[in-house]
C-alpha cells in the first residue's frame, strides 16, 4: 500500500515539477519578448 502511494506521489511530483519548469521558461520568453 505504501509502495503504491509513494509511486503515485512520485508520479505527480514529476509531472508538477516539469510543468513548473515549462511555466518558468514561458514566463522568461514572455519577458524577453516584451523587453526587446
Amino acid at each position, binding site marked *: 500500500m505504501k509502495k503504491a502511494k509513494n509511486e503515485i506521489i*512520485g508520479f505527480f511530483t514529476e509531472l508538477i515539477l516539469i510543468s513548473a519548469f515549462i511555466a518558468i521558461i514561458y514566463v522568461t520568453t514572455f519577458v524577453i519578448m516584451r523587453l526587446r
Partner: protein
Amino acid sequence: MMITFKKRFYSIRIISYYTGYIVLGITLLMILPIITSLILREWNPFFDFTISISISGIFGMLLVLFGKQTRDNKSYVQWKHGLVVASLSWIFLMVLCAIPYWLSGHSTSFIDSCFDVMSGFTTTGVVLLQDLDHLSLGLNLWRHMLTFIGGQGIVVLALAFLVKQVGGAYKFYVGEGKDIELVPNVKSTARIIWKISMIYLFVGTVALWIDGIVIGLNPVSAFFHGLFIFCSAWSTGGFAPTTQNIMYYHSFSFEIITIIFFILGSLNFGLHYAIWTGKKRELIKNIETQSFFITSFLGCAFAVIGLAKLNVYSGAISAFRRVVYNVLSAHTTTGFGSIYARQFALEWGDFGIFIMVAVMLIGGSACSTAGGFKGLRVGIVFKGLIADIRKLLSSERNVKAYKFHHIKDNLLDDTIVKSSALIILCYIVTFSIGTAIGTYYGYPLASSAFESASVTGNVGLSIGITVPSMPIILKLYYIIAMYLGRLEFLSVFTLIGYVIGGIKKLWVKE
C-alpha cells in the same frame, strides 16, 4: 591443432547463441503489426511482415543452433562477449527489421530502409521513407514500436522478457549503454524500467487521445495518433505518422503535452525510480537534472534573445511554440519539429543554429531514452574543473575530497572525470567527422554541423540535408554516427577490436 580450433570457436558460439536469442525475441514483436494488418485488412503489409518474420526467425534460429553448445556446456559469459553481443545484435536487427520497410515500396533503396530502422532503434527520428502520409497503419505501428523499444533498449527487452536465458545479463545491459542497476537483479531492473514506461504509455496515450479528439480528429484516428506520438515523445524519438511532424496538429495544448512527456522521457530511469520510491528531492539535488535544467533554460533564453533580435517571431506565444519547443526538443534529443526543416537554415541565423548544435550535443540524461553526451557527464566534467581550480588555489596541505550527487553521494575522482571527458571527446570527434563529410559534399558549414549534431546526438531534427537523394557515403556515415552515439562507443569499439583480433589470429601459424 584441434584444441586451438575449438578455443577460437568457443567465443563465437557464445556470441552467436545470445545474439540469436535477441534476434528471435525482437523478431517475435513483428506479430503485432501482422495482427494489426490482418484486422485492418491491409494485405500488402500483412504479407511484407509475414515474409520478414520468416526470414528473421530462420536467421535467429540458425544463430542459436550454431551456438547451442553454449547452453549444453553452461559457458561463462565474459565482458567482451556481452559488449560484442550488444553491438552485433543492433547491426543484425537493423538489417532484418528493414525488410518490411523495403518490401513496402516506401524506400528508394535497402540502405534507406536500414537508415530508417537505425534512426528508429537509436531514437534519432530522421526519416528517408517516401510518402509518409500514406504509410499503412501496420508499418506505422512498426516504426513507432521500434523507436519505443529502442528507447528502453532492445537487448534489455529481449533478455528480460522474451528469452529465458539471462546468465551474465548485466554484461549485455552495459553493452547497450545502460549501466545503472536499480535493484541487484538485472532482470528486475529491466522490468522496473518497463513498468515506468508502460504507466507513462497509458497516461500519455490517453492524454494525447483526448486532446486529439478536442482538436478535431476522429476518435479512432486520435487514438493511433496519440499512441504513436507518445511512443516518439517518451522514447525521445521524433517520429510522427505524418510528414508535417508535430505541425500537423496545429495545437498549443498538444505541443505542451508532448513537451512534458519528452522531458520526462529524457530523465534517467534511476531518477524516476528514486522519486517513485519516495526520494522526491532527488529531482532537485541530482547533478544530472541540475545540469539539464540549467543548460536547457540557458539554451531557450539565448535562442529567444537571438531570434528576437532578428524579428523572426512576433509574440511570446509564437516564440515559445517555434523557438522554445524546438530547443527543448533538441536538448532532450527528441526531434519533434514545430517549423519546417529549411526554416532553420533560412530564418534562424548562425546564432540560432549554434544554440541548436550545442543543445543537441549535450542531450538528455544517462540511462534514459535520450542521446547526446548527457547531462551527467557535463556536470561531472564541470565539477571536476571547479575542483581542480580550487585545488590550485588552496594550500598544498589542504587535501579535500570532492563529491557529486547522483542518486547517492559519489566521490569525484580523476577516473570518473577522465572517462566522462573521453566519451565527450568521442562524441565531438564523431560530430566533427560528420560535419567535415557534409562540407566535402558542398553543404554549408552551419547546415552540415546541424545535421551532424542531430545524428550524433540521436536527435532527429533536420535542416534539409537528410533526403533520399543525399550522397550514399553521407547516409552510411549518419547510420554509423547514430549507432555510435546510441551505444556510447564502448561496445562498438569492442566489436571492432574483436573482429580485428579475429582477423589477426587467422594469419598466425599453428
